[in-house]
């Protein structure tokens, strides 16, 4: 701030003060993510500050950490399968909700979005209780079924959002010109809803990939996912070894953020 500007008659001191406040609040919001980056490159053997030097040893160690690698494999298998399943289940539901008139539509729609209103700890308990006798605990099937409920609302919401911004005249025209339902869907509807489907799919992927509570309840002992492994590790020690892994998880989330932002806008998708 230069002297000259300070004495300008219309200078309003509240403005830069507000700017600084917003900047500090952004810093607070990003603090845990930024600190993980710093720690992951610090050569300190045990967690301490300030960093003593730059190193890549934590990253080089990762491939040898079998618990993390196993967790990563489990989480990837689960997240990819969950994404495919909820897209297959959720996109048709969104089509039905938008393109057809039927009774109790509002009820059906709230039903499909309601899993997000139920605390995940409650859902997780219900799942472990039900899946235990069915021999589904500590299995891929158990974790995947568990993740369907909490990811399907995202897919339905983003697909509905894409459907809502288009009118149905193209589809009607194609139909009148003799196209069958499947052709209409593949050639007209699918391109229209593509942004919503992509956004919903990657959100479903990351929600499942990062989910910890349901995975912890359903498969802690037998088939721990990556978030569960990290949780266990961090519970015992908050040292730097897990920082490198955290950075990789943050980068995966960042990729998802970029895809969603490009496809339909982050704010719209997560409203």
């Amino acid at each position, binding site marked *: 701030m230069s002297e000259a500007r300070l004495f300008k008659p219309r200078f309003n001191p509240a403005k830069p003060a507000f700017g600084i406040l917003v900047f500090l609040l952004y810093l607070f919001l990003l603090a845990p993510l930024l600190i993980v980056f710093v720690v992951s490159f610090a050569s300190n053997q045990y967690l301490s500050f300030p960093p003593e030097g730059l190193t890549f040893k934590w990253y080089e160690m990762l491939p040898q950490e079998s618990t993390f690698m196993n967790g990563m494999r489990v989480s990837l298998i689960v997240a990819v399968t969950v994404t495919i399943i909820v897209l297959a289940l959720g996109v048709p539901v969104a089509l039905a909700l938008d393109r057809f008139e039927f009774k109790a539509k509002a009820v059906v729609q709230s039903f499909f979005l309601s899993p997000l209103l139920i605390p995940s700890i409650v859902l997780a308990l219900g799942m472990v*209780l039900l899946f235990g006798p069915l021999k589904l605990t500590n299995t891929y099937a158990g974790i995947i079924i568990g993740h369907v409920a909490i990811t399907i609302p995202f897919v339905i919401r983003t697909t509905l959002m894409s459907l809502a911004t288009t009118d149905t005249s193209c589809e*009607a025209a194609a139909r009148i010109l003799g196209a069958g339902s499947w052709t209409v869907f593949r050639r007209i509807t699918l391109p229209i809803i593509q942004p919503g489907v992509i956004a919903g799919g990657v959100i479903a992927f990351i929600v499942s990939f990062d989910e910890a509570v349901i995975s912890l309840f359903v498969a802690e002992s037998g088939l721990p996912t990556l978030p569960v492994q990290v949780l266990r590790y*961090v519970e015992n020690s908050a040292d730097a070894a897990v920082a490198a892994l955290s950075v990789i998880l943050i980068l995966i989330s960042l990729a998802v953020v970029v895809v969603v932002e490009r496809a339909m806008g982050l704010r719209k998708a997560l409203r």
Partner: protein
Amino acid sequence: MTATHTQTPATRRAGAAEGDLERATGRRNRRTYLALLIPGLLGLLVSFVFPLAYMIRMSFNRGAPDGIIEETFTLDTYIQPLSDPYYWRVTLDTFQMGVTVGLLCILVSYPVALFLARSTSKYRGLLMAIAIAPLLTSAVVRTYGWMVILGTNGLVNSSLEGMGLIDTPLKLTNNMTGVTIGLVEIFMPYAILAMISGFGRLSPQLEEAAGSLGASKLQVFTRVTLPLSLPGILTAFLLVFVLSISTFITPRLLGGGSVQVLATEIYDQTTGLLNWPFAAALSVILLVLFGLIIAVYQRLTKKIGG
């Protein structure tokens, strides 16, 4: 809170070859939408309705801490937590944590939301994305980040010791302070999103009008900006409140076993003590708390909405 947008395809469809479309799809309509809905309904039945229903049924059984469950229909599991001062304490602590986190979260999110709602900068989109993006990062990772910042050898304590301001490290983790700080940050993106959506009637023109009619900066804020952003603030508070009272990861990690809230208690009863009916009853209590708050919220918004 999330299911607010309504679809009006009928109105959009009006005029756009409506009659032809209806005739073309007419009789197949019913079969088609059912075929589209049923797989999804089945999926949600298996992964959502059955587990919840089974859990509610379980809460009426009788359990012993060693994992033996007596199939019966009793209210014992509800009487036990309601008559034991310890569980009143836990419920009260949970509630208190929700209120504290909700209030603090609003305090730190409001300026950011206000900034984003008003900004005309070309970086607005990017700044908006940065504010919301942490939503899609792992809660475990973000909590770990806070452990690094707040821990005994963490950033805060090392800095303060380095500057000679303290001799012994401050206790910022393994207690409610750490959990509160972590949760406030973790729920900030939710609060910002909810506020911006709730700022509907807030516009720079109104503020300018008030200013040109002679209102001071403070008056513009207290008489125009704040009242118009109140619905957004209220929504954000309730959202953060319900999220905090049910959250598990952060109280578990940053609380380090010394912070007991309903969620950690449910976990301990389930995996540690294997008292499933009791854990189920605690979950039902949490759900009822949840439902009550959402009902109150809907009453309130109706009143405000006029």
